[in-house]
């Protein structure tokens, strides 16, 4: 069976800086990779490459059989960026609905409501995003990213700004997608947060995997200690 998400010596340089350096890995349906690494390690760049937002300087990324940034591939990806990707003059509902339409959902309105409810911002859905607090905006941003129920979810520090209930909602949502056979990559600086969901864990350092393993057997404290010295 072909993996759902596949990167082959995927790399990107900015000027002289190798932000991402020939990454090779793949995820099957239902797998979730927790991606850790120090600031500037290349995590965001890696996700942007896998979302087809920027062109790789080396290698390729595939969703199922199709290569990025092909249309068919893009349609299956959902990116939770660390920018909201929202139009702040429009309301939460309008933003999510627009995204739903762009993805060709036939029941865009229903899907929009569902997504907003899932993140518990239904009651604030009709004010301009501009007027929402940061955490509420983050919820809308997530709703926008997953309204089309993508097979591949790329989440860049998705818990940023979320309170307890928001985090719970997000975790629930990611687990649900995973159970439905989606492949996830979650970037975060909180090992615990990341490992809670993960089937695999990886540590990125200056663009390369310093570690990549199954999350099953991992002991949080040991892993944390090793991470610390690995990065130092």
């Amino acid at each position, binding site marked *: 069976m072909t993996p759902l998400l596949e990167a082959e010596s995927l790399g990107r340089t900015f000027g002289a800086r190798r932000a991402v350096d020939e990454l090779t890995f793949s995820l099957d349906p239902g797998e979730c990779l927790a991606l850790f690494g120090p600031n500037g390690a290349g995590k965001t760049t890696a996700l942007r490459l896998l979302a087809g937002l920027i062109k790789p300087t080396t290698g390729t990324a595939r969703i199922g059989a199709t290569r990025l940034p092909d*249309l068919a591939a893009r*349609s299956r990806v959902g990116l939770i960026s660390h920018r909201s990707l929202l139009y702040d003059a*429009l309301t939460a509902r309008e933003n999510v609905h627009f995204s739903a339409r762009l993805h060709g959902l036939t029941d865009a309105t229903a899907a929009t409501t569902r997504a907003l409810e899932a993140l518990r911002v239904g009651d604030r859905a009709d004010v301009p995003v501009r007027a929402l607090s940061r955490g509420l905006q983050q919820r809308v941003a997530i709703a926008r990213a997953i309204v089309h129920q993508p097979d591949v979810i790329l989440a860049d520090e998705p818990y940023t700004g979320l309170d307890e209930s928001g985090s719970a909602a997000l975790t629930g949502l990611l687990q649900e997608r995973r159970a439905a056979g989606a492949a996830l990559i979650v970037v975060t600086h909180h090992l615990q947060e990341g490992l809670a969901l993960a089937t695999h864990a990886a540590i990125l350092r200056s663009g390369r995997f310093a570690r990549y393993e199954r999350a099953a057997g991992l002991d949080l404290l040991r892993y944390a200690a090793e991470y610390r010295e690995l990065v130092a």
Partner: protein
Amino acid sequence: MTHPGLIAASWLIARKDLAIEFRTRSAFLSALILSLLAIVIFYFAWDPTAIGAADLAPGVLWVTFTFSGLLAMHRSFGVERQDGAIEALLTAPIPREAIFLGKAFANLLFVLGVQAIALPAVAIFYNLPVGHALAPLAVVMVLAAIGLVSVGTLLGGLTANTRLGELLLPVLALPFFVPVVMPAAQVTAHLLAGRPIAEAFAWIRILLAFDLVFVYLCTLVFPLTLDD
């Protein structure tokens, strides 16, 4: 769940842009006032005893259109940049050309709206009889607007892209405006001077050619200005 086609996607984006514009109805209103103001102010930039209104009108008209047009295009990508919204469009399963066509269409409506007010305004304030030449003028304006908007939208994309914006690309795009606006201004001059429309046909044909070429070319080139 099927991806929206080129037209459908473009229409979605155009509608979204217009929605943002009209979130406060005043957005369009101000574009109108702007062009009115420009036209009125320009009257005082020249010595009316030295220059007849009819000689100025074409230049004034087209500078006004160009400016309000550029404003629209600039705005239409400023909106996208704000919170990285453009990236949402780039990750969406729509052809990148749709982004161009959608925005171009929204901008076209914008510019046409401005023209629809600006022309009568010029007629009144510069008291020119435009009635006799209205039909050909309208044609010229639409044709020119199409050219102006297609090039301008492309330019807007260039300048909005921080990476390219710092290069000289905007300046390089300048020459492409000339062949669009120049014939328009000349035809307008012809018509307002009451010369026979026949003379203008040559120009109009050129305009048409430019439109076809530029709309096609810009749609083609636009995706290149996006992916980084």
